[in-house]
């Protein structure tokens, strides 16, 4: 039965996943080409000195892409479900509601994890050819809060869309937006290091919020 839910999610989101993959590959390639051209133009020593001395890691263009991806996937996944309350079809299936909604969330969270891991892996593997290991690690730590932002964005937007009342959606958005904004407070490389356990905790907490919206839907708060 879970296979069937995954099948439905794949049918619904496959075009989006393909598009997201192309955009992510495009942007990672663009960033790598930028670093490569800077290395060629300014020389290795000058570029490394700039990266270390001025904290310029040349990955700023990537900053909001995980967030945009997370938000878009939540919109593509849940808007069709909430349109004419189509989610009633899922909630009427002979399978526990937590399991059915959980498996739908699981599909997208795993998809986002795979996409973000692939981004980070390609970036790290290629950068290793030109940059010292410390700089590659620093670049990864700089991008990490943006990945958290993407996941949190997905959870918060899912929570807002699944909420059955407009008033509740606005409240959810007002609570959720600052949580997501936490991940974009600074572009200073690796400055989020002490915050990762808290971001992880926020991620776990926000993953539970869509279930509360569905619970309210089933109570008839429509």
């Amino acid at each position: 039965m879970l296979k069937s839910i995954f099948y439905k999610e794949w049918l619904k989101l496959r075009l989006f996943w393909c598009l997201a993959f192309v955009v992510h590959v495009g942007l990672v390639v663009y960033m790598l080409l930028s670093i490569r051209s800077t290395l060629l133009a300014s020389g290795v020593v000058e570029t490394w000195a700039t990266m270390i001395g001025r904290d310029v890691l040349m990955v700023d263009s990537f900053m909001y892409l995980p967030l945009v991806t997370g938000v878009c996937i939540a919109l593509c996944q849940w808007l069709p479900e909430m349109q004419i309350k189509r989610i009633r079809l899922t909630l009427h299936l002979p399978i526990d509601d937590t399991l059915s909604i959980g498996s739908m969330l699981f599909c997208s969270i795993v998809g986002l994890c795979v996409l973000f891991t692939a981004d980070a892996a390609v970036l790290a593997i290629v950068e290793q050819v030109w940059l010292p290991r410390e700089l590659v690690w620093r670049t990864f730590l700089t991008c990490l809060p943006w990945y958290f932002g993407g996941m949190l964005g997905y959870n918060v937007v899912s929570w807002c869309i699944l909420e059955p009342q407009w008033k509740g959606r606005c409240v959810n958005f007002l609570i959720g937006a600052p949580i997501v904004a936490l991940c974009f407070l600074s572009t200073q490389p690796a400055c989020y290091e002490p915050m990762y356990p808290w971001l992880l905790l926020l991620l776990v907490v926000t993953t539970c919020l869509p279930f509360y919206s569905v619970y309210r839907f089933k109570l008839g708060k429509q």
Partner: protein
Amino acid sequence: MTNDLVIEYDHVTHYYGKRLIYEDLCFAVPRGRILGLLGKNGTGKTTTINILSGFIQPYAGSCRLLGYDTRTMPARERARIGLLLEGHVQYPFMTIAQIERFYAPFFPRWNKEAYYELMRLLKVKDYQLLNQMSNGQRSQVALGLLMAQDPELLILDDFSLGLDPGYRRLFVEYLRDFCKRGEKTVFLTSHIIQDLERLVDDCIIMDYGRILKQCPVSELITPEKTLEDTFIDLTGKY
């Protein structure tokens, strides 16, 4: 109430905010009967369907389907209940074949042939997307899925919405044959009263907040009066 009652709607009261929809509403549907719920707009027909389907919890009273309270019904028991949502809502991004493949593993009595028999009648291709089909064709897909599910109880919310007379007739005839063959219990609403005449055994006529009449439909039809005439006599023209 006995075990042979498939639906037991027991002293249900419901409010939307402070607005009372109905108070202390009671009715029951025995196994094998087709019951139609008639009422003007806003009398609580869809609310009743939503309470029956477990999407709204009533303010007071209880609702039992197949012996289970809808609030605590085990999820697996939902396989015994077929639900048709108003407007024949289904997944528009799926094709005829994909939607069948999606639903099949959920229902132990799934009958693929019943679904494809109806699809052959529609002359639609397996690869056709639901969002490229007319309202009438989509209604037949929804009906085909219900037949493949082979539930004991069918709950149909305004099944005639958006259908032209041809598709309404096809829907009613197919549904009637299906129900008679398998001794199904059906609870339905429709705004086209003529359809109910041909389909239902029993009828409930609702007005704002109460039941005006609950009896076999044969008692409401006379040589001089159609069901629609009786409905207007009871509820008033407007």
